[in-house]
C-alpha cells in the first residue's frame, strides 16, 4: 500500500497516510471485533501449523531425529531427477484432474440448474440424491463389491450375464482398468461442496428478477439462465471452482480405499498418494512435505487460471 517513496518531503505524506490507516482501523473496530473469534481460532489451528510446516520440505525431518537436518533444495532435486514414481504420479494426477475436474464442475452446474427447474419437494429430494454419495463415508465397501474381481462382483456378474465377457475382469488390480474405475467412483462422489454451493447460488436469486425478465421478453429457460441467473451466480461459481480444484488435485482417499495402496503398477498413484507413502508409510516427512509443496503450487496456478477465466464474474 505504501509506495517506496524517496526523499524527505514524502515522509510527511507517509506519516499522513499512516495516520489515515490508523483512523480507518479505529473506525472499523467493530468489524475487527466481529472477525476476532474466527481469526483467533483460525490463526492458532491453521495459520501457525501452516507456517510451521513450510520449512519442513527443506529438511530431512523423519520424526525420529531432532532437530532435523537442513538439506536445502535437495528434496526437490530428488523428486524431479531421481524419483520416477513421482514423475509417473504427476501424469496420473493430471489425467485424473483433467477428467474429474472439468467434467464434475460442468455436471454440478448442469444438475444444480436442472434441479432448480423442479418443484420444491422434488428439489430437496433430487439435491439429496445427488449429494448423498458425499455423505456416505463408508460406501467404498459397496464399490469394492461392485467391482469385485470374482464373478460375485456386480459389474462382472452383469457383464457375464449379458454375454459381453466370459471371465471375470480384475477391475481393481488390473492396471489397465484401475484408473478408469477410480475416476468413475470419484465422479460419483464429486457432486459435493461445489454442487451444493451452486444449488445455494440458484436459490439465492431473487424470484422478482425472473418475473421482471418474463416481462422484458425472456422466452425460455435457456435465455433466463444466460441473462438472469448466470450473471448473479459468479461468486458461487468461483467457490465451486476452488472446491473442484482442491478435490481434483488432492483426491487420494477414493483410490486408497478402492484399489489399495500401492495400486498395481502405480496405476492410480497420484501426487497425494505419493505424499502419503513418504509421510505416513516411510515417515520421511521432509520429502513428503516437499511433495505437498509442489502440489500446492500446482493448485495455486490452477486457481489463478480459473480466476482469470471466471474473471468477469468475480468481484
Amino acid at each position, binding site marked *: 500500500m505504501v509506495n517506496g517513496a524517496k526523499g524527505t518531503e514524502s515522509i510527511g505524506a507517509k506519516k499522513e497516510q499512516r495516520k489515515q490507516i490508523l483512523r*480507518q482501523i479505529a473506525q472499523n473496530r*467493530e*468489524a*475487527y471485533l*466481529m472477525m476476532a*473469534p474466527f481469526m483467533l*481460532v*483460525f490463526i492458532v*489451528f*491453521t495459520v501457525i*501449523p*501452516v507456517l510451521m510446516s513450510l520449512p*519442513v520440505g527443506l529438511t530431512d525431518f523423519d520424526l525420529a531425529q531432532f532437530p532435523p537436518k537442513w538439506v536445502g533444495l535437495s528434496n526437490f532435486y530428488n523428486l524431479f531427477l531421481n524419483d520416477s514414481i513421482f514423475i509417473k504420479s504427476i501424469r496420473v494426477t493430471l489425467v485424473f484432474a483433467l477428467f474429474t475436474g472439468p467434467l464434475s464442475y460442468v455436471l454440478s452446474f448442469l*444438475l444444480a440448474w*436442472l434441479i432448480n427447474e423442479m418443484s420444491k419437494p422434488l*428439489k430437496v429430494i433430487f*439435491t439429496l440424491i*445427488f449429494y*448423498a*454419495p458425499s*455423505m456416505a*463415508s*463408508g*460406501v467404498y*465397501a459397496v*464399490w469394492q*463389491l*461392485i467391482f469385485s474381481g470374482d464373478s460375485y*462382483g456386480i459389474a462382472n456378474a452383469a457383464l457375464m450375464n449379458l454375454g459381453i465377457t466370459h471371465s471375470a475382469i480384475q477391475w481393481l488390480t488390473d492396471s489397465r482398468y484401475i484408473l478408469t474405475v477410480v475416476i468413475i467412483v470419484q465422479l*460419483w462422489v464429486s457432486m459435493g*461442496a461445489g454442487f451444493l*454451493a451452486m444449488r445455494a447460488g440458484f436459490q*439465492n*436469486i*431473487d*424470484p*422478482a*428478477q425472473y*418475473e*421482471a425478465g*418474463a416481462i422484458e421478453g425472456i422466452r*425460455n*429457460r435457456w435465455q*433466463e439462465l444466460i*441473462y438472469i441467473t448466470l*450473471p*448473479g451466480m459468479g*461468486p*458461487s461459481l*468461483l*467457490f465451486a471452482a*476452488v472446491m473442484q480444484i482442491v478435490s481434483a488435485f488432492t483426491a487420494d482417499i477414493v483410490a486408497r480405499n478402492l484399489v489399495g495402496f500401492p495400486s498395481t503398477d502405480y496405476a492410480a498413484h497420484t501426487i497425494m498418494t505419493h505424499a502419503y507413502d513418504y*509421510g505416513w508409510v516411510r515417515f520421511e516427512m521432509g520429502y*513428503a*512435505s516437499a511433495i*505437498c509443496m509442489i*502440489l*500446492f503450487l500446482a493448485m*495455486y496456478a490452477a486457481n489463478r487460471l480459473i480466476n482469470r477465466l471466471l474473471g468477469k464474474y468475480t*468481484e
Partner: protein
Amino acid sequence: MRKRSSAAERKPAVDPGKLKASSRRAGRKIGGSVLIFLFLTVLGIFMVLPIWLMIVNSVKPVNEMFIFPPKWYTLNPTLDNFKDTYRVLGQMWVPFSRYVFNSLFVTVSVTVLQCVFASMAAFCLAKVNFPGRKFLNAVIVLALLYNSNVIYLMQYMVMAKLHLINRMAALILPSVASTMGLYLMRQSMTAVPDAMIEAAKVDGAGLFTICWRIVIPNQKPALMTMAIFAFQGAWNITGGTFVYDESLKTLPTVIQQAAAGGISRQGVAMAAAVILFVPPVLFFILAQSQVMETMAHSGIKD
C-alpha cells in the same frame, strides 16, 4: 451482478397489474419439465444404486450374501448386523451412551460455533471496507488450497503447547474455523446490495446488528449449506491422536472399530456405514427444507 441490477431497476417501469398476471416464470413448457425430470431420475438412479446396495446388504442374511448373480434386494431382511454391532459396542467398558453423547456434543458445538464465527467474519470480509481486507481474503483462499501432510503434526504440537491433548476441546476447536464455510458465506454475501447496508447504517444500526438482523436472514441458502458441511464434517470427527481416552472417543471411531475388529463380517461393515450415514442425511433434509426461496433478499433492490 451489474446485469442483474439493471434488470431489477427497470422493473418499476412496468405496470403493476401486468406484473401480477405474469408472476409465473418465463417460457416453461410442460414437455421440458418432464424431460428434465426423466433425465434427473435416470441419473439419480445411478447415483443411488451403490447406496441402495449398502442398505440392502446391511439387512441381508448371511446365506444370501454370496449368491450368483448378486441380488439387488432381499426377501428376508434381518437386523442381525445392527444387533451384533450394538452388542459389541455394549461390551466395551465405556457405556454406549457416552459415545453418543460425545458425538452429539462435538457435532452440535462445532456446527453452531462454525456457523456463528464464519458468518460474522464473512460479512466483514465481503461488505466492510477495512484496512487489511484484501490480504485476509487472499489468505483464506490460500488456506483452502494449502494441503500438507505435516499440518496434522504441527497442529498436534500447537495443541500440546496449549495443553489441549486428550480433552474434549481437542475434538472441537481445530474444526471451528472452517475456511470453506467462511469462503462460501463470503462469496454469497458479495451479492447483498451495498445500498441495503448503507440504509441500515443511516438508521443508526451498527455492523453487528446489520449482520445478524439484515444480512444473515437473507442468506439462508448459503447459511444452510454451510451448516450441512459443518454438521457432516463434525459428525465424522474421530479425534485421531488428539484424544486417547476411551471415554472421549466419538461414535464413528468406535463403530468403525467394532465393524473392523470385533465382528469382521461384510454385512456388519455395511450396517456400520448405514448407522453413520443416517444422521447427516436427516440433518440435510432438515436444513434444505428450511431454505425458502421467496426469502431471498426480501424484495430489496440494488
